[in-house]
């Protein structure tokens, strides 16, 4: 097992204006291992992998490949040395085909330097086949593919560079369970072929299923590297946060009252087909389903973003016509959207301006914004949600993912909602921030707010919800009480017709 590492990093430090992102960090990657990189958001994982992949240059410290010191001035140089990176935001061109994407920038050339299309298609097919990927046509347009398939194209693209080191930044964040299994199969295949894989994930269970070793970072410092077999998840969590978290899901008991939101036979094609749902005061309802099952579409219809075509929405028993988000807000509905970057935040603007955006009326007099009231609101939000920021004047873009998410939540709490719809409230958020958001949701329910929580993480749904509702293809297909719900039952309801697919994937792994 003590083979020589392909890649070594030593004494790496990196400073950005205002932040010491990394201090004396180190890591090494061996051939044929999956090396997990763990840490809370803002711990320095992203900076570290950007140094490996040539996006950033370290202020101090060495990178060595096969014992030789190397300097990457840009990602291209890193690629040339066999370092490939798959980022959270996939970087494919939706209008081009699979083959064109795989060979973007280094297409095989024919005579006179023109692109050799046949060679390109053939080699793309070879690469896909070598990864046991048979359900992708090299002529498919990327725009028509699911997220899972696009990611497989990314991996194929990385391999087209003969990658020896493959960095995967939260590859499962947006994937369905079936796609996660396929991804694991591919990762194992690559490991057998001697590729060194750096794997970043917020899901500890993935680390235990997949990784051989794990390196933990905290606040930009190196904590430790361990063999996965020798650690427990409790140990890893306490290494990451520097304290022990007893219970990740501190669901507190709440008084459940009258229905605050009743939805009857709500239609909005194509993905909201006759939905019925009741949400009571103080209740947390978990809305489970695969990606694309219509959960967000349903929520956005209730919120008036895509107004309903037919059906009734009753708030406190009164039938209302909600035609835009402004009206939904006036009736006490808040919606924390799924994608904080494009929907939840105006990232180029300040924290203060983001927190107040949905409630500008409450911090203004006859149309004029009251600066003092707005500052107070921002400071209050920073304090009550423990947002790590200099002040309300900080631009949201510069906050870590978890803190950005807290800003979105703060923004909607400022609206003092009676009905809070949260779409993936903890996606891409570190363990500490996650626990805080969960506690917050619990407390809100205790205060009598009805919470509808959309989540793709089953432990979160099972741990937080009083009731679990499952959507599939735009319809509600199952409902479980907290007591009767189990991971198996919910998953079965989520993908009742997807059994064949699951067993096929089993064979692939």
């Amino acid at each position, binding site marked *: 097992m003590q083979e020589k590492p392909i890649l070594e990093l030593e004494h790496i430090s990196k400073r*950005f*204006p*205002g932040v010491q992102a990394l201090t004396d960090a180190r890591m090494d990657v061996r051939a044929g291992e999956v090396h997990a990189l763990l840490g809370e958001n803002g711990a320095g994982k992203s900076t570290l992998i950007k140094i490996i992949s040539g996006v950033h240059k370290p202020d101090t410290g060495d990178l060595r490949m096969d014992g030789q010191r190397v300097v990457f001035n840009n990602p291209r140089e890193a690629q040339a040395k066999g370092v490939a990176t798959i980022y959270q935001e996939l970087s494919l061109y939706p209008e081009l085909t699979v083959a064109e994407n795989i060979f973007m920038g280094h297409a095989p050339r024919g005579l006179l330097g023109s692109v050799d299309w046949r060679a390109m298609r053939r080699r793309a097919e070879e690469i896909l086949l070598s990864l046991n990927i048979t359900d992708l046509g090299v002529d498919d347009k990327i725009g028509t593919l699911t997220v899972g398939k696009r990611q497989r194209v990314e991996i194929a693209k990385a391999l087209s560079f003969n990658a020896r080191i493959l960095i995967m930044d939260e590859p499962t964040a947006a994937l369905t369970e079936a796609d996660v299994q396929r991804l694991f199969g591919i990762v194992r295949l690559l490991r057998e072929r001697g590729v060194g894989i750096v794997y970043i994930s917020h899901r500890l269970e993935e680390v235990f299923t997949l990784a051989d070793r794990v390196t933990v970072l905290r606040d930009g410092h190196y904590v430790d590297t361990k063999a996965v077999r020798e650690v427990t998840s409790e140990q890893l969590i306490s290494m990451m946060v520097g304290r022990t978290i007893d219970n990740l899901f501190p669901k507190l008991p709440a008084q459940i009252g009258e229905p605050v939101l009743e939805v009857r036979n709500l239609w909005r094609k194509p993905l909201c087909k006759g939905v019925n749902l009741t949400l009571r005061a103080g209740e947390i309802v978990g809305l489970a389903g695969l990606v694309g099952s219509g959960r967000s579409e349903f929520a956005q219809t209730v919120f008036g*973003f895509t107004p309903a075509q037919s059906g009734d929405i009753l708030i406190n028993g009164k039938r209302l016509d909600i035609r*835009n*988000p*402004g009206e*939904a*807000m006036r009736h006490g509905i808040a*919606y924390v*959207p799924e994608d904080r970057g*494009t*929907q*939840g*935040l*105006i*990232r*180029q*603007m300040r924290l203060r*301006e983001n927190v107040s*955006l*949905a409630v*500008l*009326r409450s911090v*203004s007099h006859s*149309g*004029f*914004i009251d600066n003092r009231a707005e500052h107070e609101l921002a400071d209050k939000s920073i304090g009550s949600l423990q947002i790590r920021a*200099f002040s309300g004047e900080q631009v949201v*873009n*510069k906050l870590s993912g978890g803190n950005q998410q807290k800003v979105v939540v703060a*923004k909607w709490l400022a609206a003092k909602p009676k009905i809070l719809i949260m779409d993936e409230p903890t996606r891409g958020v570190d363990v500490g921030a996650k626990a805080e958001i969960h506690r917050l949701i619990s407390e809100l329910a205790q205060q009598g707010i009805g919470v509808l929580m959309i989540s793709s993480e089953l432990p979160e749904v099972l741990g937080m919800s009083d009731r679990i509702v499952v959507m599939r293809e735009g319809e509600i297909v199952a409902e479980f009480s907290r007591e009767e719900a189990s991971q198996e039952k919910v998953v079965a309801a989520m993908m009742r017709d997807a059994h064949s697919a699951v067993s096929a994937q089993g064979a692939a792994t």
Partner: protein
Amino acid sequence: MTTTTHTTDDSQEQMSSRIRSFLLRQEVILLIISLLAVMFLAFGSDRFLTTDNLLNQGRLLTEIGLVALSMTFIIITGGIDLSVGSILGLCAIILGVMWDPNGAFALPLEVAVVICLLVGTLAGFVNGLIIVRLGVPPLITTLATLALYRGLAEGISQARSVRGYPEEFYVLGQGEFLGVPTQLWVLLIFCILTAVILSRTIFGRAIYAIGNNELGARFSGVPVGRYKIMIYTFSGFMAAMAAWIFVSRVSTTRSDMGSGLELDAIAAVVLGGTSIFGGSGSIIGTIIGFILIQLLKNGLALSGVTTDGTIVVIGTVLILAILINNFIQRRSGNG
């Protein structure tokens, strides 16, 4: 934890970075460039830096200034309005034709002015409706209405000009109030009004939010469509105001009035630091922008530079200002 030492370090760092970022603000840099230009131009001609000349320049920049103010709102939302010059022409013609004592309408001048303002506002409203309700990009919409409104103006005017307005009509464009050209007071009022609206109100904040992330603004309950229609309507109104002042200043009405005005207005806005991609900018910047352009035009002319040469200089200044701005943005935004 060493939180306390961190905080003092950070706040000091923040303080000095705040001073630095103030000095590096586009408006401040532009102001410095303007002052340098004034000094330079003053050497070129004795007549440049005189009160009379400067006040007279104020008369000339009012029309562009008014339109640039509303253009700032539009460009901050990431849009553009190319039709303002044509709206100006259309409104000027409407004013003349409605009033013309020998024409078909022969309305009182006051009524003609009101109709002129209404037509401009309606023209802007139509732009807004097409952009918001039909989803046609602002560039295409206003490029089309640029042709449409100019065509209407020419059709209505039948190549005739209207002149011979009563004496009191010229007060706005040629008169003075407290020793300052009348229209400069109008411009000043609108400068203050728009600056306050943009920087202090809910509406202004929403305009920035729309420009930075329209989807995010909609998810926050901002009535994006209504606000956009409002700013294009306002743009039409401002073009009509400019038309009124223009006619009063030059004592005549022609259908080709205001052609090319949109480019001067856009140049002033962009020179003033408003990003053409939307999301940032200020009225102060725009004000400095249109003053600088007018001073350059005038100063160079007085120094004996030809009109063609002046245009070349203004183009060069515009490109330089944008390069400097980009350079600063890249340095300060590098985080």
